[in-house]
């Protein structure tokens, strides 16, 4: 049993593209970091920022949102809406001192099993280097109080 920190990354993968990409990675027996735990949604546009925040608050060290490439969304442009929300979410996380690498957005089409696997590997390495999230420290300022910058927002 290694004592090395193994991050837990929650993934919200869209049913049509990225979830299938993960399926394909498995079918092709591509081995990648087992740190990703997938939750299926129909479209990346379904991902509510509160899911991401709840995941981090509940102890996940990172969150991956994955959808179809722009222009290829099964529901036309749900992924674009996901991109908009993600952009704003990122700003909020930044203000709370949560590192950018912890929440990432990825486009992966159903045939891109290798892309997904590589992205998971990369993200796992990045978060390993960052260490555990420590929500109470980062966001709550260690004493249970809300972080001063977040208060201003």
């Amino acid at each position, binding site marked *: *049993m290694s004592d090395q920190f*193994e991050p*837990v990354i*929650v993934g919200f993968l869209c049913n*049509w593209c990225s*979830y*299938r990409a*993960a*399926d*394909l*990675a*498995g*079918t092709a*027996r*591509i*081995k*990648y*970091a*087992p*740190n990703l*735990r*997938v*939750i*299926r*949604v*129909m*479209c990346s*546009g*379904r*991902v*509510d920022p*509160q*899911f991401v925040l*709840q*995941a981090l*608050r*509940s*102890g*996940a060290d990172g969150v991956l949102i994955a959808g179809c490439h722009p*222009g*290829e*969304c*099964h*529901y*036309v*442009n*749900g992924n674009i*809406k996901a991109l908009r*929300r993600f952009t704003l979410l990122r700003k909020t996380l930044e203000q709370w001192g949560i590192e950018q690498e912890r929440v990432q957005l990825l486009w992966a089409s159903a045939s891109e099993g290798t892309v997904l*696997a590589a992205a998971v590997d990369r993200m796992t390495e990045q978060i390993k280097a960052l260490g*555990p*999230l*420590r*929500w*109470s*420290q980062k966001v*709550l300022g260690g004493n*249970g109080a809300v972080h001063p910058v977040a208060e201003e927002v």
Partner: protein
Amino acid sequence: MSDIKESPAGQERVGVYVCHCGSNIAGTINVDEVSKWIESNPNVVVSRHYEFMCSSTGQELIEKDIKEKGLTRVVVASCSPHMHEKTFREATQRGGLNPFLFEMANIREHDSWATNNKEAATTKAKALVNAAVERVVHHVPLEKIPVDINPNTMIVGGGIAGITAALELAEAGHHVYLVEREGTIGGHMAQIDKTFPTLDCSACILTPKMVDVGQNDNITLLTYSEVESVDGYIGNFNITVRKKARCVDEELCTSCGICEEKCPQKVLDDNYGAGISYRKAIYRAFPQAVPGYPVLDKENCTYFQTGKCKVCEKVCPTSAIDYEQEDQLINFNVGNIILATGYDLFDARRIPQYGYGRLANVFTSLQFERMVNASGPTGGHIVLRDGVTEPESIAIVHCVGSRDQNYNEYCSKVCCMYSLKFAHLVHEHLPEAEVYNYYIDMRTPGKGYEEFYHRLLKEGTHFIRGKVAEITDADRKPGEEGKLIVQAENTLLGIQQRNAVDMVILSSGIQARHDAEEVSKLFKMGCDYDGFFNERHPKLAPVSTMTDGIFIAGACQGPKDIPDTVAQGGAAASQVAKLISQGTVMMEPVRASIREDECSGCRICNNLCPYNAIEFDEEKKVSHVVTALCQGCGTCVAACPSGVIDGAHFTNTQVLAELKGILWDVEADVPAMEEV
């Protein structure tokens, strides 16, 4: 197998089934451990593990437990839901439960197959199974939604794919609207002289089918027309087609052709004529056009440009010319759509080294087809650009724009065969001429194709294996003056070769139509990286798309020859016929619905829906989802600031419960958490 637990009142009774899938899962994940571990979840009353859950025995386990153990929810931890969600939902239903009271945990594709780390895989499997259990207790029964299928079909594109599909459906007794952009149906196949490998005359095999289409009562032929808008969903598409004004009254025209004959304005025909012949301003693309009514090209018509002329009106014996004719907008409903919009030829001007457009005697494949055709501009004689001289040597260059990282990486599938066909035609028309085929590989996969290649070898064609680097008129040695020099590496001999020929034919590749992306957006579907329409599954569903009710056939899906195109046309027709004969289709109940009592009327959701499925009720001042239009993406659910939109089967409660379950082994680093 464990003892049956008694569950407290009001709690669900979940049955968990962990599949071994032979050694696919069990080889990496300790299924026994997972199965025992999940029993500690208070919702779980039955936990089993079994070799092959998808087998009939496996499924019976589920059915039996539901009946005998009073299960209220079922979880199967096995492969991807894309494999067996349907299987297990049906098993659940047979056991007596609503099929949506079931959830799957993907511990094969996403876990056992993706890692060699047994410990990590088992921990992850526990997380995924736990997540499924936590989620499934919040599932509610859902019913599929029946949708009626309108028996009419719209086919966009009147090439051989569209014609085949139209005839199949029409002869089966269903009504078809065939929409074609040009003035006549026929497509690219009408431009071809002979088809490989049988050397059938293309027009001879195509025109009878065209005539059938024109005469079939079940086909409404809308030529010189384009689709303007598509609304609705499978079974109920509402279509608007713009029938452009051809300035000819179809009721009066007898297709006598006098207007065309007398028209004084010659126009370069860069469509049907591939740019080497002329047509008139009022024209039929070719004599066997269906329908036979000519089209008046306003942009090149003397009358429309300068106000003078009107010769066609004067000579028409039935007074069928109508300069005032306007575009018509035609509206109709169909249940299904087949897209058969065909291809464009790769533009050889993109490869300036080949000299197309600069050097007189470099021709493209379609130009050569027109030249060698008896009804073409030269009466079927193979001549140089001057229209008179017969070439003594011809080079045919394969793979122009195809198999090339700089242009299109894919192979266009038909060029080797048509290049061989050209070689043969040259031998036939000009027995003394030397023919050089420059190829990379000889791709002859179909029936009779390889034999055709061998025939060409016997006919004395010179085959040079090498990609042509340059075609130039810069002569260097005596004997090269006035000729085209083809420079290539002859890889089989290992030398650079300069070959002086009189004429070069570029076997340009097949490309997606230049407006394929716009068309795909109109129909709310997608194109792949190369611009061809996206099929639902490249192997098992090549003519369906991700959008129910919309099918694709022919070269618009990818490069292919005529036999494959006809096969796809028939396949698409058969898919449509299946839906029509079913009469009603059951739609997935994954939809959004708004709790109108709580809706504040902010209307943020209204414009977010890509299917325009959200309406605003002006009286009640609340928004409302039109269930039949909703496709269940969930964007509105995530966007609603009041949180009053429920995404059936993907509610916030369900997703957050799944999240809680998935993080079973991590501690929340917060002071005492409130329940979400």
